[in-house]
C-alpha cells in the first residue's frame, strides 16, 4: 500500500491570501496564535478553503484539525470546510471528557453524512491540566486514559466494532454509563466502514489505547533506527503508525538548514511548551537540550521552544523522498505534515517530493 500523506490545517488567519509570507513570519503567526488579540481563534473559511484546494492539488489525503481552547471547534470546522471542498478528508482532533460518547458519535455520524464520509478522528487524552479544568475535567493523566478507553469502547460499540453489530448499546463502566443507546443516523462512508481512529501520545497508556480501541497510533517523528521496533510492535497488533513532523524542502540541504535555523527565536528562553504540563510527549521534548540532529535530515532545534510537533524533516526533494521511503521500510504507514508557510510547503511537497516517492 502507498504511503498516506496528511497535512495540518493552518490556524485561522494564517493563510496569507495577499502577498507572500516568509517562513519566519508564518512560524511567528503560529507561535503568537495563543496570544490575546490574535485572529487565530476565529474561523477562516476563505483562507482554509484556499489551503484545502492547494492540498487536494498536491495529493494530500486528509487535514488534521487541531483542538484547543485557542481554536474554533474542529467538528464545526470540518463540517463547514467539507461543504466547500469535495475530495479532501478531515481528521478531527478531540479530547475525551468533553462530551458523552453517544453525543460524540451522533456528531461524528452527522458530519460524515454531510461530507460523504470524509471524516476520521484523533483522540487526545488532553495535554494541559489547566486547560482541562476549564472544560470541567479534573482527572489525572492516567485516569484520563482509562476514561478514554471507556469512551472509545462506547463509540466503537455504536459503530458495530468489537462485535456489537446493530444491537442497542449498553455500557456500565467507571466513567460512562449508557443504557439502550441507539442512534438512527449512521456513520456514512463509501466503503461502509466506521471512522479511522488515530490515538496520539508517547506514554504507555496511549500506546495501549491505540491497540485496544484505535486504528492508528500517532506520534512524533523519530530517527527510523530508534522507531523500528516501536513500529513493528504496533503493526504486529494490527495498528498503523502515523508520524507528525514539520517539513522544510529547498533545492539543496544547505538552503533547507538555513531556513529551519531562521525560525529559532531571537530570545533563546522563549517557550510555549510549559503550557502542556501534563503530557509525556511534551515532557520528553523538554528534555532535548543538546545534539539537535537526530540524523542527517531530522532536526529538533525548535522542539525545546515550541514543543515536539516542531520536529523538522529537512533537505532537498531527494533527501526528503529518501527519508519517507526509509520510514516506509520500517512499517510507518501515514504522515501528518506541516510547514512554514503551509500553502507554499504543501505545494512544494506535492510538486517536488511526492512524485519521487510515488515513482518508487
Amino acid at each position, binding site marked *: 500500500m502507498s504511503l498516506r500523506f496528511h497535512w495540518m490545517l493552518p490556524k485561522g488567519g494564517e493563510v496569507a491570501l495577499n502577498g507572500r509570507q516568509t517562513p519566519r513570519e508564518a512560524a511567528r503567526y503560529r507561535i503568537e496564535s495563543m496570544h490575546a488579540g490574535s485572529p487565530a481563534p476565529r*474561523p477562516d473559511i476563505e483562507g482554509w478553503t484556499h489551503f484545502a484546494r492547494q492540498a487536494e492539488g498536491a495529493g494530500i489525503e486528509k487535514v488534521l484539525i487541531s483542538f484547543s481552547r485557542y481554536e474554533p*471547534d474542529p467538528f464545526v470546522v470540518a*463540517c463547514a470546510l467539507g*461543504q466547500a471542498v469535495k475530495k479532501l478528508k478531515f481528521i478531527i482532533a478531540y479530547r475525551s471528557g*468533553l462530551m*458523552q460518547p*453517544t453525543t460524540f458519535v451522533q456528531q461524528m455520524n452527522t458530519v460524515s453524512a*454531510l461530507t460523504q464520509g470524509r471524516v476520521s478522528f484523533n483522540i487526545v487524552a488532553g495535554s494541559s491540566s489547566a486547560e482541562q479544568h476549564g472544560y470541567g475535567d479534573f482527572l489525572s493523566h492516567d485516569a484520563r486514559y482509562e476514561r478514554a478507553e471507556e469512551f472509545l469502547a462506547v463509540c466503537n460499540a455504536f459503530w458495530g466494532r468489537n462485535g456489537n453489530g446493530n444491537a442497542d448499546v449498553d455500557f456500565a463502566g467507571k466513567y*460512562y454509563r449508557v443504557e439502550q443507546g441507539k442512534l438512527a*443516523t449512521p456513520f456514512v462512508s463509501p466503503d461502509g466502514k466506521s471512522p479511522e481512529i488515530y490515538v496520539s501520545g508517547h506514554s504507555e497508556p496511549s500506546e495501549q489505547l491505540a491497540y485496544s480501541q484505535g486504528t492508528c497510533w500517532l506520534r512524533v517523528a523519530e530517527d527510523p533506527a530508534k522507531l523500528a521496533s516501536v513500529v513493528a510492535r504496533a503493526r504486529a497488533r494490527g495498528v498503523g503508525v502515523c508520524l507528525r513532523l514539520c517539513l522544510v524542502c529547498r533545492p539543496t540541504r544547505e538552503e533547507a538548514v538555513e531556513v529551519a535555523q531562521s525560525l529559532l527565536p531571537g530570545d533563546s528562553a522563549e517557550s510555549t511548551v510549559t503550557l502542556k504540563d501534563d503530557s509525556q510527549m511534551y515532557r520528553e521534548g523538554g528534555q532535548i537540550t543538546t545534539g539537535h540532529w537526530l540524523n542527517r535530515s531530522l532536526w529538533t532545534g525548535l522542539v525545546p521552544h515550541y514543543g515536539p510537533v516542531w520536529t523538522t524533516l529537512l533537505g532537498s526533494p531527494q533527501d526528503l523522498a529518501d527519508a519517507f521511503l526509509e520510514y516506509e521500510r520500517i512499517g510507518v504507514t501515514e504522515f501528518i505534515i506541516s510547514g512554514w508557510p503551509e500553502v507554499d510547503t504543501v505545494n512544494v511537497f506535492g510538486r517536488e517530493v511526492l512524485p519521487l516517492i510515488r515513482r518508487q
Partner: protein
Amino acid sequence: MNLRFHWMFPKGGEVGMKTAQETSRVATTKAGSAAALPDMEGWVRFARCAEEAGIESVLLSFSRYEPDTIFIACAVGQATKKLKFIVAYRLGLMQPTTFVQQINTLSGVINGRVSLNIVAGSSMVEQRGYGDFLEHDERYARAEEFLGVCRSFWSNNGDDVSFTGNYCRIENGKIYTPFVAPDRTMPEIYVSGHSEQAQHLALTQGSCWVRLIDTPENLAPMVTRFRDKGVGVCLRLCVVCRPTRDEALAAAEALLPSEEIERQERRILSGSDSKTLKDALAAADQVGWMNRNLWAGLVPYYGSSAITLVGSPEDLAEAFLEYKKIGVTQFIIAGWPKLDEMMIFGREVIPRVREAESHE
C-alpha cells in the same frame, strides 16, 4: 416591533413528502426512516423558500432519530445568507465549555445566524442512551447551572469562567473563539416547557419562553408575567390556511391518519415525564376545539406541537394580532405539507399581519 415568525425545519426526506401522514413521528422514528439522514438538497430548497416567505429562523429539532442540529445549521447556513437557525439541544450531553466553543464556532461560520432552544429532555429512555440518568426536576437544576456557565462565557468575552455547582464545575475556563453576530454578543436562548421548572429556567437564564399555543385568554396572565421580567414568549403551533374557513376545516380533517398511528403516538405522549406533552394530550381529549380557530384534535396523531390554527388568511392574521395584543412576540410554526403550507403562509398571512402592524 413586528411579530417574528419562525418555522419548524423538516426532517430528512420530509421536503419531498406530499402527505401529512408520512411525516408523523411514528413514521419518522421507525428504523430505516429517511429522517435519520441529512437531506441537503431538500433542506437547501426549503431554506431558500423560507427566506422568500419572510420566515426569520427555522427550528432544528434534536433527538436520537435525527442528525445533530449544530451541523445541520452549519451546512445549510453556508448555502443561505439570511435565514437563522434555532438549534435545539438537550443538556447533559456535553460540558458547557465545549458547547460554547461549538456554538461560537458555528456563529463565526454563519455570521451569527444561530440561537438556541434548550430542552431538558422529554424521554427518560432516550436520555439514558445518552448517558444521562437524572430525573425531570434534577435535569432542570442542571440546566440552570449549565446555562449559567454558558452565559458567563458569553458575557465575559470568553474569559476566565469559574463555577462550582452540583452538576458543573469549571476552573478558569477560557474560550478564545468569540460568539460573532452583527447585533449580539450571545445567542438568543429559547427555553421550552410547561412545567414550573421550565418556566423558572426561562425566567432566570432564557431570553424567550417557548410553549404550546393556547387561547389568548388562557395565555394572557402568563405572558404578562414573563414580559414583566423582560423575557419574551414564543408559541409553538401548526397552521392550516385555505381561502375560506370551511376549506381549511376540510383540509385539517383530511390530515387525520390511521388509528394505528394514533395508538402509537398516544403511547409516546402518555409515557413521557414532560408536562408539555401531558397538557397537549389533555387539550385534545378534553377540549378539542379550544376556540373558533384553534384545534387540538391532531395532537394524538402528530404530537404535542400539533395544536393547529385553522382558517382563512384573514382569520389567521387576526388571530396572530390577537396574540400580539396580549404580548406574545414570536411563533414557531409548522404545517403540512411542510413546504406548501409555509409558502401559503408567507404569501397570504404575513403580508396581512405586516399591513396591520404598519398602522400600529
